[in-house]
């Protein structure tokens, strides 16, 4: 064997040992677009709770199912004993990863730091959502929560991944939680590794180890999947979704509560007239947008703000009717001259604002522009930064603002609708003012009977459809691709759940 051949062999062996291990059925490697923020990311701080919840490390008192219904998770039951008092009874026999029992006091010790500004687990957003006046233990299994004011969404807020129930940390269990997987290590911005919790109360998890690796570029993630470096890609590129399944990979897709929608300038410009807002809504072919921008798989046309057939969604189908749109423009006093609409002697011009941090936003705005021009409305698109576009619409410098929001972050509609549509809502960029809407939103926050709340939010959606302060365009469908044989997995509409103890590769 020549020197050169020997050196080549040594180099190849060295390279081979440095390569990641080939995918095995006992391990699962998932590629996602973001990584952990710290070596031990406290699930209560920032949005660290997303990854710990998604990887099955942490659990919450309440959970949200695949139809967006609330269910008791670590809680056995929840009851409201007074307008501001909630009693949560814990399941019997719960233990943390280190084997210590999950008691009412342990739950209080886990949740209290969220509202403590001096604690590293402090989370201003969740503290505001919980709005706690106090907590107390009634025996070992009952936690009594007192809120500052009546809040019908309270029980939903207990499903926020950041309200994770944690025991005392130790070197062996730095995130001492209750889920089917045990946190082992994280490399900031790179990877997150968990191992099976063999003592999990619902059964042994399907994998010995799960690794999450961060790949901000979906194209790289798709190539890494083809190279066998990863077993599963969350947010797979839509344009390659059909082809990769032809190679034998499994594809999963389902609509989420992330909505692309237009906020309308309701106080100045042509869209101050509700008839023109309706016309604009009817002129947008949502199917065409989903096909062109998301290859038909990355979204579902939206008729209302919640995904169709899921909890809270009113029965409103998306509607595309350019003829009716033109009739409404005429009814609003616009005149069509030479194929172009004019209003009060001036061209009817609409400026669409958006931002570019989500790839689908600019093309969605451009296709909307084309649909408006198709019926004779002069439209333009301005792409800026999110905050700048928001401020511009608020100041009346623009007509429509395309945004993407998760409409049910905790599974309850109250808070987001208040931000967007209440007269004093912090994100009411279109300056929408409707006393009937304000009354309904307050009623929704203070009504505790579920059927009655559904009626209230149904009415809110009917007002949105009729008065058009917002135009829902599509709900994002999360596209996920996995190695063949993955079972016990489906796309969750809140995007905050990935694997359960039942997720595994089939024998």
């Amino acid at each position: 064997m020549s020197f050169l051949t020997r050196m080549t062999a040594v180099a190849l062996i060295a390279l081979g040992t440095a390569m990641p291990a080939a995918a095995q059925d006992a391990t699962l490697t998932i590629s996602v677009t973001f990584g952990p923020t710290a070596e031990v990311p406290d699930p209560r701080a920032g949005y660290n709770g997303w990854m710990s919840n998604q990887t099955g490390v942490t659990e919450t008192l309440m959970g949200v199912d695949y139809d967006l219904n609330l269910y008791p998770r670590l809680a056995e039951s929840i009851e409201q004993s007074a307008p501001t008092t909630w009693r949560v009874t814990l399941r019997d026999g719960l233990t943390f990863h280190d084997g210590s029992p999950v008691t009412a006091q342990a739950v209080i010790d886990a949740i209290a730091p969220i509202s403590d500004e001096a604690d590293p687990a402090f989370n201003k957003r969740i503290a505001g959502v919980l709005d706690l006046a106090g907590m107390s233990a009634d025996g070992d299994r009952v936690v009594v929560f007192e809120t500052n004011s009546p809040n019908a969404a309270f029980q939903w807020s207990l499903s926020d991944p950041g309200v994770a129930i944690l025991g005392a940390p130790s070197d062996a269990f730095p995130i001492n939680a209750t889920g089917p997987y045990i946190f082992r290590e994280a490399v900031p911005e790179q990877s997150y590794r968990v191992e099976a919790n063999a003592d999990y109360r619902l059964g042994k998890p399907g994998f010995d180890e799960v690794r999450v690796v961060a790949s901000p570029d979906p194209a790289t993630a798709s190539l890494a999947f083809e190279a066998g470096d990863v077993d599963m890609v969350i947010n797979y590129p839509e344009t390659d979704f059909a082809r990769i399944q032809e190679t034998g990979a499994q594809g999963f897709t389902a609509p989420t509560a992330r909505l692309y929608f237009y906020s309308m300038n309701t106080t100045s410009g042509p869209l101050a007239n509700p008839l023109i807002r309706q016309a604009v809504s009817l002129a947008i072919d949502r199917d065409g947008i989903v096909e062109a921008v998301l290859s038909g798989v990355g979204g579902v046309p939206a008729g209302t703000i919640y995904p169709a057939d899921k909890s809270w969604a009113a029965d409103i189908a998306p509607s595309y009717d350019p003829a009716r749109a033109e009739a409404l423009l005429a009814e609003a006093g616009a005149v069509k001259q030479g194929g172009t609409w004019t209003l009060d002697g001036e061209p009817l011009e609409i400026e669409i604002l958006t931002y570019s941090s989500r790839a689908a936003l600019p093309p969605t705005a451009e296709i909307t522009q084309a649909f408006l021009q198709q019926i004779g409305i002069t439209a333009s698109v301005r792409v800026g930064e999110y905050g700048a576009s928001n401020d511009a619409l608020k100041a009346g410098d623009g007509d429509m603002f395309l945004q993407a929001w998760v409409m049910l972050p905790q599974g309850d509609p109250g808070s987001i609708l208040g931000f967007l549509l209440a007269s004093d809502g912090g994100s009411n960029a279109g300056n929408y003012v409707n006393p009937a809407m304000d009354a309904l939103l307050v009623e929704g926050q203070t009504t505790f009977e579920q059927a009655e709340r559904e009626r209230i939010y149904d009415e809110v959606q009917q007002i949105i459809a009729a008065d058009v302060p917002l135009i829902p365009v599509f709900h994002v469908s999360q596209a996920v691709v996995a190695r063949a044989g993955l079972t016990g997995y489906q796309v969750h509409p809140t995007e905050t759940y990935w694997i359960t103890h039942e997720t595994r590769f089939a024998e």
Partner: protein
Amino acid sequence: MIGVFTGFLLRAIVVLIGAALATFALLWHAPGDPALAIAEARYGQNVSKEVLDFIRSEAGFDDGFWTAFWAWLSPLMLGDFGQSSVNGREVWPDVVTAMSYTFPLALVSLALGLAVSVPLALIATRKPGSWLDRGAVALASVGVAIPAFWLGLLLILLFAVQLGWLPAMGAETSAHSILPAMTLGFGVAASLTRIIRSGILEARGQPFLPAFTRRGVARRDIARDHVAPHAVVPVVTVLGLELAFLLEGLVVVEVIFARPGLGSFLVNAIFARDFPKVQAVVILAAVIFVVVNLAIDLIYRSLDPRVSGRDA
């Protein structure tokens, strides 16, 4: 020499303060509410007005530009880069971690570029206009024209997907650095090949060289003592510039190969309007450029005594 260093120090201070102030002003005055960007990066979703007010107060946005700038600058003068506005972590240890990924990759890429470009330029200039020379020029032109993001994906497709020799992404082992180094090194090699080739040809055209030949000085000695020092001056300049291009190229390469490092650190910080992080990277980059400029200046002086003479 003392005068040179004093002048350098004064220029460095002006550059550092200027860079810090300009960056802070750009971030501060960029359209949109920085509190919104920080909130989205910190909480992953839209938040209430109360949360935005809290972030503004916490970050000192309520106190006006100069107060906020001074609040950042005064601890920096004691060596404290502050905490991230997004996750509250100390900035400097995270910058050091990012550097530990970026600098070795940048140096390996630079070395790779030199290792390819020097022999290629030497071979090409043996017979100017030959097919070898034309091939080297063509390769250099193609290398400069190919964007790093495209070359990176092509290399992943070939070496990770088709051949299965190398990992497609990550930074866990030395094997993970090979494709990113090839991506960056290719561009560096292309650019340096052109410069070195031109430098050698220009130096060979100097009118005094035939005199050495007529006196019987060996070709090798002429090349070492008279051609190389002339040819190396523009290369030194370009190496300094290449460092800048490398840092720029690293942003793309780090995203393509899903590697942590200064590039992705800076991009994420800018999108999140994380002032302390952005400022830390800008200060670091400014220091690097000042030091590189000084190094180039000193190398010039050793290569060309006329430069020192001008200072006298």
